[in-house]
């Protein structure tokens, strides 16, 4: 790893990698999600059956991961827009990345109870 580069192995590169990975994951979920929602045109029972899997603890954990991917992609996407269109964006890209990470941690902490609370009650009772 060459030392002293502006990009390689630093905030700019890793945020790009994370943006790409989360984007691909979200896109693959989107295919599945449109297909499962299409079951409302088959029958109420078919739809409710597949939605029941979304309420199991393991899938709830995957949903928490999906929320994590979407929130990072959304916040870092706004940072990319700021880098491209705000005249001081490139100068503050690092500070903006750490702001993104900070807001992401706060939102993910706030999402624990709403997203995983149902799974907790299923596993450990009321």
């Amino acid at each position, binding site marked *: 790893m060459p030392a002293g580069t502006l990009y390689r192995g630093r905030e700019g590169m890793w945020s790009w990698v994370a943006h790409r990975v989360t*984007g691909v994951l979200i896109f693959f979920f989107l295919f599945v999600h449109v297909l499962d929602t299409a079951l409302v*045109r088959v029958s*109420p029972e078919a739809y409710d059956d597949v*939605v029941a899997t*979304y309420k199991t603890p393991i899938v709830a954990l995957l949903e928490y991961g999906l929320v994590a991917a979407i929130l990072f992609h959304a916040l870092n996407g706004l940072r990319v827009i700021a880098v491209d269109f705000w005249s001081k964006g490139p100068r503050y890209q690092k500070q903006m990345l750490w702001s993104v990470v900070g807001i992401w941690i706060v939102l993910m902490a706030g999402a624990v109870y*709403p*997203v995983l609370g149902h799974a907790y009650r299923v596993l450990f009772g009321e």
Partner: protein
Amino acid sequence: MSSDTSSAQAIGSVEGVSLYDADNPAPYIEAPRKRTGKTPRSTRGNFEMAAWLFMRLSGIVLVVLVIGHLLIQLVLDGGVSKVGFAFVAGRWASPFWQVWDLLMLWLAMLHGANGLRTVINDYAERANTRLWLKGLLYTATVFTILLGTLVIFTFDPNIR
């Protein structure tokens, strides 16, 4: 080094006498790649620039649409546990949420498809591989957008 370049002095003895002077100037040479009347029209459009701009504009709209969607489906009113056919029927009774979901479907699919197109262009090195992967991507994208649109427009709460 003399700084006097105003006359034929600039021509060294090796080069000999200049062929050109003020009365007999050197022929004008076009700048490289300059577009002239004879240049064929460019066959390239501004597609990549439009795609770049679309990612940013759709991204801003999607932040609002998708985070609102997550709040409704996963956070408010007991989170995912209240989602079911009756819940979907209740929301799609309103044109507002139909338009919300339709816009979200189209923007997210096109945003994601363009993102994956970039990923394929970056990592698939053989032209044939790129062709097939993008063919698969576009087929899946068109199918999913049409299916989702059809579901939103033909939804029937009294299917049973």
